[in-house]
């Protein structure tokens, strides 16, 4: 869903043209970014006042002073459990409190003791724990922080002197002249009496800069009552050439240097027809960056929800591979280094430095701060059929029937904004959807589900209950003058509920109760769109920064708005079921921590090959920063895909976490059976492959939920020493055992896939052909499928009986695919629960088995002996890839030994054990003799 149709704002360009860049700010057009970026690396004016050092058990505090203006800052340092360091910098005595981001951290992060190692006039050395010999060195003049491990510097802060903290101040002209007539600031500043010496210099230096107290972009003026409040800090990463993360950008996985170009921007925006391969801001923002080299992975979490820009530079960026090699050979090279600089418009500096050292450690560290991916109902991992819009109940029924007629499974059918009564969310169009419960019951009878959209902009209409209640309870965001903020969106004039208020979120959640949300049923779930928030007639199509959330400005909260909307909605779905059912909520805007509330998609993409291609790095980047349940609109939202592109997109989407087809209102229908029997068969096969792998997907999400590991992973995450993988974003891993190389070129006859791992093997998931690792491999492709490989050494459970929906398959038996490593071993897991409630958590109702193949024995071991869940599911087949031909296969269970039948296909060395029949939750051993 996205912008179109409305004849408002100059946003609307013809469909053949991409984003209208003029609608969105460059760094130069954003006053604070311009000011900050004008500051070049050099001697920092900040000095640490070592005499102010205070060391308690959990933290160190220290004052910093800016020698130019004498403003003092307070530095706080924490050692956090799990190998993390937190650095906070605020004004020592701000005129009024500065904003600190609430609700993102799952708790106050537990600390570990810091100890003083040494101190002299030049600085302080703190120990970050003896185990790793990590130290934090505070240098006093100029102020600088270095984190070292042994002799090695891991990271330096303010090493380039770009710490800049615009302190709160009183506007001089308004002080002198309350009416605020524009008197010459320059002159006033210069003529400042000598006694206010402290600020004189600053007055002369800063006050003449434009846009500090007001700035105008296009026709919108930002009143900036607090004046300049921006902050900036630089980080140097010696030995690092690869940095990732800071989504959302339509760009490659590996972040590029921004020297001479625009910084990466983090500011949640509804960008109409976004352009690829550039650092423009998109719908969501996660201010988390990962730094990786062959020996270490680290992370930086910049906890700030205001507009943020990130500059990246590198001392090796300009060098060719040959140049780097020459450096290496001649030994002349300086250490490669990446320098990063963060700039935010308001708030404080609050940075979490995650020291890894492995990728998996960084994921766990970040998860300990902001939580893990919510565990979705298994149906949410199945196939979703969406369109703007399914016209009416009959249309929904016809589409549902179409899937059955063409024997294509699906779990969710979606309704976009047109299902409502005049874009009043929580209502139904009385003509098109007169009996929503009948419709939902029909879907339920097929064991399927529905999602209906609920956006956060509320039609201003005194006949609309939701609006009246929000207004009466004073829950709307206010404009700068104190009235209810109104903007233009789908319903016309709309108010925006203040989701930053907990009372508001509570009330919102209560609106999802079955007796409040008329026509809703337990198989109706929710989609939050336009929650950047999108304001068609606002600056950059979003909310005015001087709008008010209580005492705070929207400026402070902006990137957090969508996070709160999804939070409140997910809470509503949980509460309507009495806390029993897991929610499913899709959001377009997001922030750090949004993973706790549901799924994210990459917004309004287009039916173009490049958009298919970019869906891979976009979801990989999100996965790296905790948001695993990510997908792109299959087929592309804008425009009409060629049949080939549509098929390829289904094949790719089937192997990405959130698998939903979606289309714009103005495009021709594209349900999977509309392109001739051949293509219907290709799409059916792609969707069926997804359904057979649902047990594996579900298990990966259980893992993501419990450990914070991403589901869709770049190869380097599993092969961190293999530098060949560091730039790769045309293929990816699901978990660690499936490697997928989508076909994203029109008319492709083959792809070159890279199979990682020295001494490892990979099995083609379709043909079972074995390939060695650590090689690039040309794989011929046809339209029938995309290359997928199973890692030698893994065991993947599948359900081969694909049915109408995932819930129809819940009791079906498993087939275990055991792919042997060269050492003839393999490992895997099997996770089973009811698929939709919190009982796995609250009552330990699940089955979690470890599956191991070693010494010719495949065995199942209980990973949770205290758990109880009885699943009717059983093991119908065991397929062992890379096997030899045994004489005999025996099953040992309950003290009995049974001989099993088997078949051996010598051409591909595949052993198929026929119907062992053991219960999926049981202890058993299968022996090859």
């Amino acid at each position, binding site marked *: 869903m996205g912008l179109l149709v409305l004849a408002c704002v100059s946003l609307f360009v013809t469909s053949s043209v991409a984003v209208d860049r003029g609608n969105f700010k460059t760094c130069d057009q954003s006053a604070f970014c311009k000011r900050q970026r004008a500051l070049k690396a050099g001697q920092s004016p900040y000095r640490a006042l070592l005499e102010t050092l205070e060391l308690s058990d959990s933290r160190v505090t220290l004052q910093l002073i800016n020698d130019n203006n004498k403003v003092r800052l307070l530095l706080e340092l924490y050692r956090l459990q799990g190998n993390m360091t937190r650095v906070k910098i605020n004004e020592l005595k701000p005129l009024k409190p500065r904003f600190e981001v609430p609700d993102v951290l799952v708790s106050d992060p537990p600390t570990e003791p810091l100890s003083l190692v040494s101190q002299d006039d030049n600085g302080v050395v703190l120990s970050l724990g003896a185990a790793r010999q990590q130290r934090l060195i505070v240098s006093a003049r100029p102020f600088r922080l270095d984190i070292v491990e042994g002799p090695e510097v891991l990271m330096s802060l303010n090493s380039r002197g770009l710490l800049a903290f615009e302190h709160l101040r009183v506007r001089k002209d308004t002080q002198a002249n309350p009416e605020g007539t524009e008197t010459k600031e320059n002159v006033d500043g210069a003529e400042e009496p000598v006694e206010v010496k402290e600020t004189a210099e600053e007055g002369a230096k800063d006050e003449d800069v434009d846009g500090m107290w007001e700035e105008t972009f296009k026709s919108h003026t930002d009143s900036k009552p607090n004046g300049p409040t921006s902050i900036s800090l630089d980080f140097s990463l010696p030995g690092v050439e690869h940095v990732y993360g800071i989504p959302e950008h339509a760009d490659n996985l590996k972040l590029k240097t921004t020297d001479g170009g625009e910084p990466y921007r983090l500011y949640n925006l509804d960008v109409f027809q976004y352009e690829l391969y550039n650092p423009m801001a998109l719908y969501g923002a996660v201010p988390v960056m990962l730094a990786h080299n062959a020996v270490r992975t680290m992370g930086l979490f910049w906890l700030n929800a205001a507009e943020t820009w990130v500059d990246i530079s590198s001392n090796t960026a300009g060098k060719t591979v040959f140049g780097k090699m020459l450096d290496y050979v001649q030994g002349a090279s300086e250490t490669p280094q990446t320098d990063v600089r963060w700039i935010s418009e308001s708030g404080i500096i609050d940075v979490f430095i995650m020291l890894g050292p492995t990728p998996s450690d960084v994921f766990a560290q970040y998860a300990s701060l902001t939580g893990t991916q919510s565990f979705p109902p298994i149906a949410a991992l199945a196939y979703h059929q969406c369109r703007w819009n399914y016209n009416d109940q009959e249309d929904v029924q016809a589409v549902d029937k179409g899937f059955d007629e063409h024997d294509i499974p699906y779990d969710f059918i979606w309704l976009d904004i047109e299902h409502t009564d005049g874009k009043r969310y929580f209502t139904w169009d009385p003509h098109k959807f007169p009996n929503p419960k009948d419709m939902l019951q029909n879907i339920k009878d097929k064991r399927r589900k529905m999602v209906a959209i609920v956006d956060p902009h509320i039609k201003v209409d005194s006949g609309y209950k939701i609006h009246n209640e929000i207004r009466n309870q004073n829950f709307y965001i206010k404009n700068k003058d104190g009235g209810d903020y109104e903007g233009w969106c789908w319903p016309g004039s709309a108010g925006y509920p203040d989701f930053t208020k907990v009372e508001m979120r509570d009330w919102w959640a209560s609106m999802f109760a079955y007796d409040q949300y008329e026509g809703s049923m337990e198989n109706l779930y929710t989609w939050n769109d336009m929650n950047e928030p999108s304001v068609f007639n606002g600056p950059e199509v979003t909310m005015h920064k001087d709008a008010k959330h209580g005492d705070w400005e929207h400026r402070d909260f902006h990137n957090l708005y969508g996070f709160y909307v999804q939070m409140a909605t997910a809470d509503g779905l949980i509460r309507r079921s009495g806390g029993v059912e897991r929610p499913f909520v899709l959001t377009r805007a997001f922030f750090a921590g949004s993973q706790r509330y549901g799924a994210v998609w990459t917004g309004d993409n287009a039916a173009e090959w490049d958009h298919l291609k970019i869906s891979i790095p976009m979801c990989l980047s999100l996965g790296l920063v905790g948001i695993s349940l990510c997908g792109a609109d299959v087929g592309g939202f804008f425009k009409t895909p060629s049949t080939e592109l549509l098929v390829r997109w289904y094949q790719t989407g089937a192997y990405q976490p959130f698998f939903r087809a979606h289309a714009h209102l103005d495009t021709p229908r594209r349900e999977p059976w509309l392109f001739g029997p051949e293509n219907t068969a290709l799409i059916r096969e792609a969707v069926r492959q997804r359904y057979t792998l649902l047990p594996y997907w579900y298990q990966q999400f259980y893992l993501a939920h419990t450990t914070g590991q991403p589901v869709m992973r770049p190869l380097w995450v599993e092969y961190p020493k293999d530098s060949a993988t560091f730039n790769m974003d045309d293929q990816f891993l699901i978990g660690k055992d499936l490697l997928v190389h989508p076909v994203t070129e029109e008319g492709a006859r083959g792809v070159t896939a890279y199979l990682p791992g020295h001494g490892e093997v990979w099995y083609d998931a379709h043909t079972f052909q074995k390939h060695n690792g650590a090689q690039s491999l040309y794989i011929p492709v046809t339209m029938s499928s995309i290359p997928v490989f199973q890692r030698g050494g893994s065991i993947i459970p599948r359900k081969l009986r694909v049915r109408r929906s995932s819930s*129809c398959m819940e009791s079906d038996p498993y087939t275990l695919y055991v792919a042997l490593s060269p050492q003839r071993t393999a490992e895997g897991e099997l996770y089973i629960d009811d698929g939709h409630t919190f009982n796995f958590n609250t009552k330990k109702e699940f089955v979690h088995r470890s599956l191991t193949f070693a010494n010719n024995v495949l065995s199942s071991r209980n990973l949770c002996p205290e758990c109880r869940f009885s699943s009717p599911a*059983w093991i119908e087949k065991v397929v062992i890839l890379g096997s030899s031909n045994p004489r005999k296969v025996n099953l040992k269970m309950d003290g009995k030994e049974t001989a099993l039948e088997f078949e051996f296909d010598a051409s591909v060395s595949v052993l198929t054990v026929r119907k062992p029949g053991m219960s999926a939750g049981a202890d058993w051993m299968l022996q090859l003799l």
Partner: protein
Amino acid sequence: MSRACLLLAFSLYVSTGCAVEVQRPRGVPLTKRQFYEENKPFTCLDGSRTIPFDRVNDDYCDCKDGSDEPGTAACPNGSFHCTNAGYKPTFIPSSRINDGICDCCDTTDEYNSGAVCQNTCRELGRQEREALQKQAEIAQEGFLLKQQLIQEAKRQQEEKQGKMTELQNNRKTMEEKVEALRTVKEVAEQPEKEAKERHHKAWEEQKAIIRAEKDKAKMAEAFLELDDDADGFVSVAELQSHSELNPDSDEAFTEAEAQGLLGGVDKVDTSSFETVWGNIKAKYVSEAQADSGTAPTQPPAEENRPPVRDNEPYPEDEPVDDEDEHDDEEEDEEDYNDEDDDKPPPSVRTPEKSEQDEEAMPPYDAETQALIDAAQKTRDDFDEAERALREVDDQIKSIEKELSFDFGPSGEFTYLYSQCYELSTSEYIYKLCPFNRVSQKPKYGGSETNLGSWGAWAGPEDAKHLVMKYEHGTGCWQGPNRSTTVKLTCGKETVVMSTSEPSRCEYLMEFTTPAVCQKPPSLDSLQHGHTEL
């Protein structure tokens, strides 16, 4: 758990109502029963392998074609046969066995899922029979109507053909008549033309004489005017007094120039003035005229004002202008305006017509007039005949167009031609004019939108006439041109049943007409033929 072998014996009810037990594995249709012989090895139906019989329906897929598991969901490509006694037997994909959803009306697909299914076959059978009966009745009636339509179409076709022949015959006659009248006309026009030319020529000569006389008089008058000192000569100086005669009007009228006009001499007498007059008369302004002060080349200011356009009923500048004209009037503006409205338009300000010095042409003499009248009569006759011919041509063309349409194998769609059928929905009125166009008009104001003009029959090959396609309607913003697919079904009446827009700007209409009704099977066969056995 459903691993047990599922060979079952079950009862099938034939329509006669007596129970017959037929042994066969679950999910196998009677027609394939012979392949599943109990206690004999089973060979997959694709012949790929042979397995012990106890592996049939043992909930494990052994055959690539799925034929060993007709009664379980084990094979991804299997199919299950529902007998559905009392209703229609059917196959379902074996993935729908025990999936918790009742697919077979006889409930046999859900034997182990816990789903509670009701046997609805009898009810469905009854409904089906009723529906079929009703359909058959409609088809019966519709088919009869169709025969009438065909007859009517045939009659119309013949009529049209007859009319065509008649028109074509008429046309021949008329064409001949037109040619004949053309000749008559031409014959009559020749003497008319000559007589008129004579008359005109005489009149031209007469006019020339009058003009020459007038010119002479004017010249004499001019001479007198120019000869200021009345010495009988016009001198250089006297000529110079008429600045309009300056040959290079921008600069001063010099003596040399004036002398040039006088033919190189200082002064001329009356007789020599004749040559001079030839040079100057075009520019010469009579003093009497110049004195009157009217500049005939300068139209009054009002004339330049653009006329008030219809779509600006209350131009704001109107009263202001009026006020300017009547500056000194102290009247209340409203009163004044009211008054002004009643005034006649200011037509008097148009410039005086240049003096009409030539008299009107004298009427034709009686003889010429007679010739003219006679010629006019032949012209009128000719025009009349030609118009009649054109009308016939139009009729022929229209019939040809109509005959060119594909009105179905027996012309059964002929009756739809030049008709329109409407359907009113909550928002719009849809109009289908078969073989012409489809349109949509908002119920409450707004203009009509073209949803497509007649394109072609677009049904599948064997039933081309069940779908009509209308194309190239009004373009959609950012989208295609609107188009409409019309699906035709058998009905007693000709009605637009429904419209929808499944895809943006692609409309779908359901339309009933007797013209697509097929002869139904005899109603008797319907009473019985609908059970498997």
